[in-house]
């Protein structure tokens, strides 16, 4: 961040100002946690020096899913149908692996209508930075509980939720996700390095961000109000992210910090707080998530990381260039191929149809 524009605006490694990562003006409620996350995405994308044309922003339906319009205005965006962003992401990735996919979803979009697609995206390990803006309610339809609402959390009218919440981080870890984090929209210091690390992760990166709904879930009795979240927020560690293109200047005392190296050479430093937390043990991570739920604590930080998980594109054995722009001669076999196939159906040596029922 050493350069500036002639007007004195600081620029990133691409020579772009932060304003060039802005989107259109938000239409969400003033004070909505989602707006803070949008700001975090803009800042993180600028600091990471993402090329806007190489980013595709994807979302489903709901308040959270509106937000891709509010960041990275020079990136293509795709606001899909409710709960189905993961399948869109899978198709986009198959067509063009050069794109960095940023998916934004909500707790209704992911944990209810889209739970199946979410699970299968994670199973396939499609490289998407999958941000859940989690407030425990359906905002656009005026405050019904979502599937991530905690037991005992109340609606504005006082009605309490009795159903078990779905923990998306626990599910993601269970399904083999190699990057699982939880954060809080009010903790930009934690959110930004998490986002930047997620940009560098070669598989699905899930960041579940608790993002209070100021209109329908900010009252006493809601476990996801600003007050409740601030009170129960229990960070696992302080996080510092150093991208591969910057020199490492931080110097930690031995034994105080865990270091994660991303495949592109970037580094994540996890600075120990009260207790040491090992983010490379999935069984432990799930135990810690369960304990935190029982203790009514909001555990935030990098819950689990394994950058060496199987890769979707490698499994598919796809050629290196984007499939979308291959020229005709590379995707239409020559006449001789058709001729030999026709001969096999003339002679009867072609495989016989499958039949079945």
């Amino acid at each position, binding site marked *: 961040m050493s350069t500036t524009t002639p007007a004195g605006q600081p620029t990133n490694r691409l020579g772009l100002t932060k304003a060039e990562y802005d989107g259109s003006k938000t239409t969400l409620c003033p004070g909505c946690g989602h707006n803070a996350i949008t700001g975090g995405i803009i800042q993180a994308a600028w600091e990471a020096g993402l090329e806007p044309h190489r980013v595709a922003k994807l979302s489903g339906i709901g308040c959270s899913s509106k937000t891709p319009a509010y960041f990275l205005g020079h*990136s293509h965006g795709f606001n899909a149908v409710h709960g189905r962003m993961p*399948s869109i992401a899978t198709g986009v990735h198959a067509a063009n692996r050069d794109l960095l996919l940023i998916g934004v979803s909500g707790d209704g979009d992911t944990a209810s209508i889209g739970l199946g697609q979410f699970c299968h995206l994670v199973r396939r390990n499609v490289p998407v930075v999958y941000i859940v803006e989690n407030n425990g309610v359906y905002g656009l339809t005026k405050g019904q509980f979502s599937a991530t609402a905690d037991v005992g959390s109340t609606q504005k009218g006082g009605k309490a939720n009795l159903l078990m919440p779905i923990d998306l981080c626990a599910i993601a870890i269970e399904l083999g996700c190699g990057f699982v984090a939880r954060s809080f929209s009010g903790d930009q210091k934690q959110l930004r390095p998490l986002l930047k690390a997620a940009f560098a992760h070669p598989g699905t990166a899930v960041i579940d961000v608790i993002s209070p709904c100021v209109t329908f879930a900010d009252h006493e009795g809601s476990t996801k109000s600003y007050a409740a979240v601030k009170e129960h927020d229990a960070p696992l560690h302080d996080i510092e992210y150093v991208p591969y293109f910057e020199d490492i200047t931080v110097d930690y005392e031995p034994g105080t910090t865990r270091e994660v190296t991303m495949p592109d050479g970037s580094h994540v430093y996890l600075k120990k707080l009260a207790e040491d937390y090992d983010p490379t043990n999935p069984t432990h991570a799930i135990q810690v998530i369960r304990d935190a739920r029982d203790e009514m604590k909001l555990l935030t930080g990098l819950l689990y990381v394994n950058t060496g998980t199987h890769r979707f594109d490698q499994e598919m054995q796809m050629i290196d260039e984007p499939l979308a722009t*291959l020229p005709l001669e590379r995707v239409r076999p020559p006449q001789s191929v058709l001729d030999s196939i026709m001969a096999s159906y003339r002679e009867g040596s*072609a495989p016989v*149809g*499958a039949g*079945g029922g």
Partner: protein
Amino acid sequence: MRTVVNDFSIHVATVNGSGSQTANNVLLRSIFQMGVPVSGKNLFPSNIAGLPTWFTIRASRDGWIARRGGHEILVVMNPETAAADVAEMGPGTVIVTNDSIKLPPVADDRIVYAVPMAKLMESITTDVKLRRLVVNMIYVGVLAELLGIDVIEVDKALHAQLGRKPKAMALNQAAVQAGMKYVREHLPKRDPYKVERMNATAGKILIEGNTAAALGAMFAGVTVVTWYPITPSSSLVEALIGFLEKYRRDPATGKASYAVIQAEDEIAAIGMVLGAGWAGARSMTSTSGPGISLMAEFAGYGYYTEIPGVIFDIQRVGPSTGLPTRTAQGDLSFVYGLSHGDTQFPVLLPGSVGECYEFAQAAFDLAERLQMPVFVLSDLDLGMNNWMSDPFTYPEKAWDRGKVLDDEALAKVAKFERYRDVDGDGIPYRTLPGAKDWKGTYFTRGSGHDEAARYTEDPNAYVRNMDRLKRKLETARTMVPVPEVFPTNGAEIGLIAYGSSHWAVVEARAELAAAGVRTSYMRVRGLPLPASVAEFVKQYDRVYVIEQNRDAQLAERIRLECPDRAVRIRSVLHYDGLPLDARSVVRGVLAHESVAQGVVK
């Protein structure tokens, strides 16, 4: 006894999972190799193994390849259905049976050939499992000897299928020989049916429609294929996977120029198609009715946001799970207007395996030209049965990737607006993610949007957009395959049909002509219906629309296109799950005609 040459239907009643498929294919191909036009139809249950299944081979010197309806020769291999199968056989027909199966009393005017198949197998192999599989070859040998099918052709057909497995080859050959020998020694011929060499199949292929569609997709340059297994569509993608594995990998690196993704359901399958189409890939999925139902929401999204994609619907019998392994044309109305709001899609209606191949290619060009999902409506009969065809021809033209502005093109325009109708054909220009020029950036949304792809709820902007989409459909009307017309001088009545119904209709027309009923015929090949359909209807006093559904779905569409002549349109409907046969068509038309002419039959 009058000899009947090359004009009969063989009905093999067996149990699914019993290995009869190889035997049936060898029989089919042997007759085909004798130069005699054939068709093979598999009537199978929704089951892995142990339920009744039937395979019908029709030989027709006149070249009729639709289902015949009624059989001349029955092969009884399934004790459970034996009584019912035999009861269907009329006087003068032939019944070949495994003598271990107890048949009900059979009238003297049916010709029964009982063959001790189990005993014949004893000398061929001691392996009980193999005996059960190879016993089917005995009836191949029996029929070859009875009908006069040259054993050279049987060997050749066997070799084509089993040539790479010499042990299996020898075993099967021995079973064929045993069947032939038994006939020569014990069963003097008492029936009139014979196969004689003709020259009507030279150069032709035998292929299933799903395989043909898969080939079309590969030569269209498909790059992203998604699917969820469902009968009768699975074999399309399975065939495609086989072709892609073989022909679309880089010889040097072994890497694939395609991605095939088995989705978690059909919603995800179409979602992936749209994601890939949005990013610029040629993408497709294949499904059947229940999958189409699940795809409705995303289909509307693709329509409204204008994303290309190709969706094959290999129709089966509905509603609901229906008869999953039987054929129908019941999805036409649903697919045409799939999704809520005012949506409509181009629908291609292949009527032959050749068109399954051609329309698969046309569908990708249309989808990318029109920027919308395009459906190809095939059916189980076309998709999963063996059809004789001329070999397919290599695409003459390059592909049409539609109005895509890349960086070079973007540099030449002052402004880009995603949904502006620049050319007046309703089709806007699009850019692909990854384009460097920021001018090309836009936001795709299923909510209301204006010309610049901005969110809006403005009533005027909404109407402008919907009217442009209508204009685009009018453009589509001029681009879908035009109907094929078979006029007859002096014909008073017209017939209209589409898809797999075609083959029964051409045969029925010959029968009607022989009965003195002259018909003209139009085969519709795509929706929206071109103007020529209404023109055709105008020319005839009575127009029969022949289709394989209960609700006269195509007839309804045609009535909407020419309301002033709606009363001329009648329907001949066939919806019992079996492929349409000519006799049903003739009966349907004549029933109306006798009423129309005041004749009491």
